[in-house]
């Protein structure tokens, strides 16, 4: 019985309308499925718009020698070989076609002299590989996909938050959520669900992520029985703004370094010489983030605790043309003219390599009918993501998940929506209004961010991680008495009260995984285990809900075929 709720029925329901969700929706629709797309914000505002530097694809437009093999090798090396090799292969092979497709749907990338898509250098990429539009590539991508999807006839449910997935036995049957504007509840019936909700960056204090990044999809997947993979790998982007306080964490694109920007400490030294003399500023993000952090910690930081990033040696017109939003961002928010002087930058929580474990070909999780793509899914990036590999991830695996979700929906009957599950979901949502003397969620959120920032940050150790687990237990108790004020009409405090549950849950998955991995690899740096460990290099961490509690186990990394091993062995 679902008659008491507003109910919509689709073959495929997609949660999240960034690049992955939109690309999945377009593909599922092309397969003939009835598609619904739900997003927490207005359409076109998802975090994809924040992607700046470009989309990585071995087109070979600028460096003719580039090919998928080199892109595959760079991705695996960047990920410290913990990547799902099949995903890395598919990604490298299919990214160029996905980029051409964007162009055919109206995207306008910057051009080479001979009229092709221009590509720029980026950290960890052997060749100039990032197709881009100045420093607003993500906006171009999301707008192109949004217009394509809307014209093709996707039903979009904007400003709607899904709080629970509904199962019928073992399989997916639908989802329960609320309209952010009016606070009314809504139910979706669906044969397949694609999670494309992004990461968990809002659990850290210094972050480039927006309010939406609260791990909803990972939590929904986990609660439904899906496995989470390698959750310890959280990417801290080396360059976020550090001053003034209100803008701390806002992203400064890697394209600044891709276009020739240099990093210096307060003694004027180009310190990357010490950390990666070969690749310097264009080393991988994990290395550059640790380098800046270390410089600051050892007293060589800038006035506000960062490093100097300088592009002012390039002509002012060139900087404004290639990095227009950086120019405006610093001018308007920090009173810094980047064409004449350096920026102050420091690491900021940016991206989640871990996420829902999926099948490489289809994006299906371990729960039948539940798919995931983009940042919410895991595998492609291993222990560290290369810049530019996220936008390509979205379109390559968004398409694959959309196709597989549509196929799945054509093979199965829709499940029944269990009233008890819906009522439980409703009770959970209404509880914060019934408490007269609990805490408001903002304070709990601030404390969670402090905890994750200080105890589960760039450098970790056993003592801190154990302490963090203790703190997370306390947050769970505090959440039991979290309170909402006012009405259900567009009430951000009430919304945060729910989002916090996902953040705390998935923060625990991150912390448990980080505690287990006794080595340093990619973005996961253990002070007490500072080296790579071959045994750990062959193991993935898996988090799964078992008997109501969070279980952690290790599983061997799947062996790759010989022809791919040969590609990796080539020393280029």
């Amino acid at each position, binding site marked *: 019985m679902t008659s008491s709720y507003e109910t919509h029925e689709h073959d495929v329901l997609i949660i999240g309308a960034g690049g992955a969700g939109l690309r999945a929706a377009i593909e599922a629709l092309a397969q003939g499925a009835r598609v619904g797309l739900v997003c927490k*914000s207005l359409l076109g505002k998802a975090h994809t*718009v*924040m992607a700046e530097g470009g989309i990585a694809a071995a087109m070979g437009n600028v460096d003719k020698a580039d090919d998928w093999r080199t892109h595959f090798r760079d991705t695996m090396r960047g990920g410290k070989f913990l990547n799902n090799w099949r995903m890395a292969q598919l990604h490298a092979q299919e990214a160029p076609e996905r980029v051409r497709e964007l162009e055919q749907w109206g995207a306008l990338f*910057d*051009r080479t002299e001979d009229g092709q898509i221009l590509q720029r250098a980026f950290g960890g990429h052997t060749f100039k590989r990032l197709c881009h539009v100045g420093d607003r590539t993500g906006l171009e991508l999301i707008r192109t996909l949004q217009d394509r999807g809307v014209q093709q006839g996707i039903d979009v449910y904007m400003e709607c938050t899904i709080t629970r997935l509904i199962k019928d036995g073992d399989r997916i049957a639908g989802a329960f959520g609320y309209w952010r504007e009016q606070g009314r509840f809504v139910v979706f019936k669906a044969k397949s669900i694609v999670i494309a909700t992004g990461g968990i960056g809002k659990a850290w204090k210094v972050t480039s992520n927006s309010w939406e990044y609260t791990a909803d999809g990972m939590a929904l997947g986990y609660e439904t029985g899906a496995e989470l993979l390698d959750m310890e790998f959280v990417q801290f982007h080396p360059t976020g703004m550090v001053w*003034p306080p209100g803008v701390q964490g806002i992203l400064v694109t890697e394209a600044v370094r891709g276009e020739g920007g240099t990093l210096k400490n307060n003694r004027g030294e180009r310190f990357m010489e010490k950390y990666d003399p070969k690749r310097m500023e264009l080393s991988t993000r994990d290395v550059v983030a640790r380098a800046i952090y270390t410089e600051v910690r050892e007293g060589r930081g800038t006035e506000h605790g960062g490093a100097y990033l300088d592009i002012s040696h390039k002509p002012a017109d060139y900087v404004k043309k290639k990095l227009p939003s950086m120019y405006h961002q610093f001018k308007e928010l920090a009173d810094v003219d980047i064409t004449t002087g350096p920026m102050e930058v420091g690491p900021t929580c940016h991206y989640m390599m871990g996420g829902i474990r999926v099948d490489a070909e289809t994006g299906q999780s371990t729960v039948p009918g539940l798919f995931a793509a983009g940042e919410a899914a895991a595998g492609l990036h291993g222990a560290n993501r290369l810049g530019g590999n996220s936008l390509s991830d979205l379109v390559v695996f968004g398409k694959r998940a959309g196709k597989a979700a549509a196929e799945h929906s054509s093979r199965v009957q829709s499940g029944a929506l269990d009233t008890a599950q819906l009522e439980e979901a409703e009770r959970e949502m209404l509880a914060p209004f019934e408490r007269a003397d609990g805490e408001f969620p903002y304070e709990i959120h601030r404390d969670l961010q402090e905890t994750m920032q200080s105890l589960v940050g760039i450098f970790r150790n056993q003592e801190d991680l154990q302490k963090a687990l203790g703190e997370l237990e306390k947050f769970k108790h505090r959440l039991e008495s979290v309170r909402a004020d006012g009405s259900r009409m567009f009430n*951000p405090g009430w919304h945060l009260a729910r989002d916090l549950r996902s953040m705390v849950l998935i923060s625990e998955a991150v912390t448990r995984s980080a505690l287990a991995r006794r080595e340093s690899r990619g973005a996961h740096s253990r002070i007490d285990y500072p080296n790579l460990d071959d045994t750990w290099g062959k193991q993935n961490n898996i988090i799964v809900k078992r008997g109501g509690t969070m279980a952690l186990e290790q599983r061997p990394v799947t062996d790759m075929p010989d022809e791919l091993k040969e590609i990796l062995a080539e020393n280029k």
Partner: protein
Amino acid sequence: MAEAVLRVFRGGPESGKPVDYRVPVAPGMVVLDALHAIQEHQSPDLAVRWNCKAGKCGSCSAEVNGRPRLTCKTRLDALPLDEPITVSPLKAFPLIKDLVTDVSWNYKINKKIPAFQPRAGVEWKMYQRDVDRVQEFRKCIECFLCQDVCHVLRDHAKHESFGGPRFFVRTAGLEMHPLDGVSRTKLLKDELGLGLCNITKCCTEVCPEEIRITDNAIIPLKERVVDEFYDPITMLVRKLRGA
């Protein structure tokens, strides 16, 4: 520490009123920071949209001291702090609550505009000089400040017969795409009401992306409409053919 008073519109369409909040001012603080501080310490149910907080997503639009602005890019130190800073919802759209308005009308208009469609048999080559002007239009972050300030929508509420600057910019981006093969001039004339714009340039003034909406999008589109529908020779030919 210095303090600012924010006079924020609170409530719904029937029972809204401005409410004063005192907020400590930190260096470089923007209006959105102040609104977040109010949510955190004084009024957790204050409704405000935001996402990137970096001027890239166009979510946090409001009217600050009567002027349409992105609150994430409006610094307190650029405003007079000896009097309250008023923060009100966009006026051109129906109010939902506090600073949140119903902007769904924009999405309906957008749906009317035919998407990019390449001319048959095009070669996928484009040169930077040809895409430069279209890239300007594609910088639009859909903050709808131009829609809010446009008197055709704001004062005359011609939402039924007028598309507004945002969708002239979008249409210009499609019409001037070097490889596009669809004409949208009839749509501009009949459904988007391009003729209602009398080029006062208010939209250009409020655009946070500094898109020259009037000069580079609207006026060239008006010229296209005139060429196609009001050119005396074309009109004569059309009349003769029709007869």
